[in-house]
């Protein structure tokens, strides 16, 4: 299983590099989907199939679909690709990359010196029941708070997205609801 772990980890890293360097927005989002699937495989190889499947359902299956949806709606085309190319000049990416490399260095040193065995330890398989008891036991408050936040977001979205109550006569034929 260790082999599967390193292989899917490698795929995740390469796919994420693809997200950053690809000038075409749709291709970039697709690389992100591949990256998320690879992370799900990492979860599987670590013996947490429940977390892996949730990763696929929630991130790859729901959230990324919306990303793809929006990028396709904007339909940037060739102009967008050219703009992305222009932004990929070394002058733009050198600074952030140096900072990120510094973070990577810190992480590697910490991993190197720390107890590496701790990272790969085998615990009990994570089951839906265990997650549920945990979420609705000690973390109940956080669950309720996030539910409130999502409700607020929903109300806001439906307010922003609602149709005007008195449409102009010229555009009323576009969207006529049944009486």
């Amino acid at each position, binding site marked *: 299983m260790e082999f599967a772990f390193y292989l899917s980890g490698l795929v995740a890293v390469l796919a994420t590099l693809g997200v950053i360097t690809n000038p075409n927005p749709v291709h970039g989002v697709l690389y992100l989907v591949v990256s998320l699937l690879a992370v799900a495989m990492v979860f599987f190889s670590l013996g947490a*199939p*429940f977390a892996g*499947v*949730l990763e696929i359902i929630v991130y*790859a299956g*729901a959230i990324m679909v919306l990303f793809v949806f929006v990028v*396709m*709606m904007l339909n940037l085309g060739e102009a967008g690709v050219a703009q992305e190319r222009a932004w990929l000049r070394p002058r733009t990416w050198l600074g952030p990359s140096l900072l990120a490399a510094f973070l990577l260095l810190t992480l590697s040193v910490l991993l190197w010196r720390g107890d590496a065995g701790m990272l790969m330890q085998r615990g009990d398989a994570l089951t839906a029941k265990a997650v549920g008891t945990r979420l609705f036991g000690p973390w109940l408050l956080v669950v309720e708070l996030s539910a409130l936040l999502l409700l607020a977001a929903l109300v806001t979205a439906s307010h922003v997205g609602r149709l005007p109550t008195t449409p102009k006569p010229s555009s009323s034929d576009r969207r006529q609801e049944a009486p």
Partner: protein
Amino acid sequence: MEWLTPQVVAIVLAMLQALVILLAAVLAGAVLTVVERRLLGLWQDRYGPNRVGPFGSLQLIADMIKIFFKEDWIPPFADRPIFVLAPAIAMASLLLSFIIIPITPGWGVADWNIGLLFFLAMGGINVYSVLLGGWASGNKYALIGAMRSSAQTISYEIFMGLSLMGVVAMAGSFNLREIVNAQQGLWYVIPQFLGFCNFLVAGFAVVHRHPFDQPEAEQELADGYHIEYSSMKFGMFFIGEYVGMLLISALVVTLFFGGWHGPLLPPIVWFVIKTGVFLVLFILVRAALPRPRYDRVMTFGWIVCLPLTLINLLVTGAVILLVAPA
């Protein structure tokens, strides 16, 4: 012959079994294309394809020869890699879902504790096939079809997952084999009738069968997302739809109608009969119902089906807590 240990034999047998199930699923999908046209003909007072072979039984072979030898045309304005990838996703994600379906006590590919979640995950991946196919075609009709399809599928997937949770709560497991075994006394269609109705509606929508075939509404979108596809790439979308039908029927049987359980006949026969009934139902619905308007489909999903599944889940949970020993 010392490599022929019992372990190796078991592995080879399991692989052969998986291969047989895969081939059976694809073949059944292909045969369904002809069965559907014959049945539609029957219900609409016409003959349907009855010229090739006795009673049109060789129509499938004629269709396959035709579709294999058509020109495989990729439009110059298409996004080539994604254009090729999309039909593969359509077929593969649905076929992979057959892994979790227990056909008889001895037959079935995998016996996973996350079984049902795996199906939902593959359903999520399947959305991409339509979305990417529509976008990569570089065609406005295809793009609009893909937009409609993804909006519809995401809406219906939400309560598809929720409608299954009643069954999961009653069986206490995501493992489909355990769910089937829990139905020995009483099929879940009776205590979970609302869940069954909602899952069936959501199943129709997720494999975008009629009356939820908005993405390919011929009269408005000239076939929607697969308008630019030809030859076997179109064939993958086409067969994929029937494989999806088969998958949803098999899942309905497994989750709500006791899987292989039944008196007298052997388990495999019961499974095939029950699945066949739901396949015919899929076709009957197409023959009988007109296609509703797109905004009605979305409103129906959010305003009728979602509250119903939530009520179902609430009542199921309350009953389980009441009945369960404290």
